[in-house]
């Protein structure tokens, strides 16, 4: 499991402007739906946006703190 604060810190390391919303899908804080709004996604297709997020969350995904992840990635303009 991971707290929303720790997850947000990981994201902001590569996307400092990110607004991060974390939803717990199973009550165990390891199956998460994460919505990220950042202008780092500007000009990137969905695949590359999600790759950016996966790279930012590489550590907590590899060590099992995050088991499953559903992602939404938008720029500020798109919200």
């Amino acid at each position, binding site marked *: 499991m991971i707290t929303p604060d720790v997850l947000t810190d990981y994201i902001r390391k590569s996307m400092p402007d990110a607004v991060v919303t974390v939803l717990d899908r199973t009550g165990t804080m390891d199956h998460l739906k994460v919505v990220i709004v950042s202008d780092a996604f500007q000009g990137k297709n969905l*695949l590359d946006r999600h790759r950016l997020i996966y790279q930012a969350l590489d550590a907590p995904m590899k060590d099992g703190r995050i088991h*499953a992840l559903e992602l939404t990635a938008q720029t500020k303009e798109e919200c």
Partner: protein
Amino acid sequence: MAEPVDDEIKKEVQAHKILIYGKGTKTMPMCGFTRETMQFFDKYNYPYELIDVLSQPAKREALTKMTNWPTLPKVFIDGTFYGDTDILDPMEKKGEMEPLLKKAFGR
């Protein structure tokens, strides 16, 4: 040099218009996201293949490298990588899925 497993993946991707690399089998998916992906394609009347890579760690690793995508399932349509339902759902909402599948299957 290309690994044999890379060639195997290429052949599989070419052989199936819709291919899901996931966890488990059609009758017994072992992961909620694999099941969701099957349900996504069940809505369309096109055949799809599910290949279990839980039992094939080398292939799983090769796929991750090839696609630069760390998670399962991984979906290929007509030879192109489309990620997972996080990508497919928004495509569907924009009306892009049906034309893509029609083009892939030629009907």
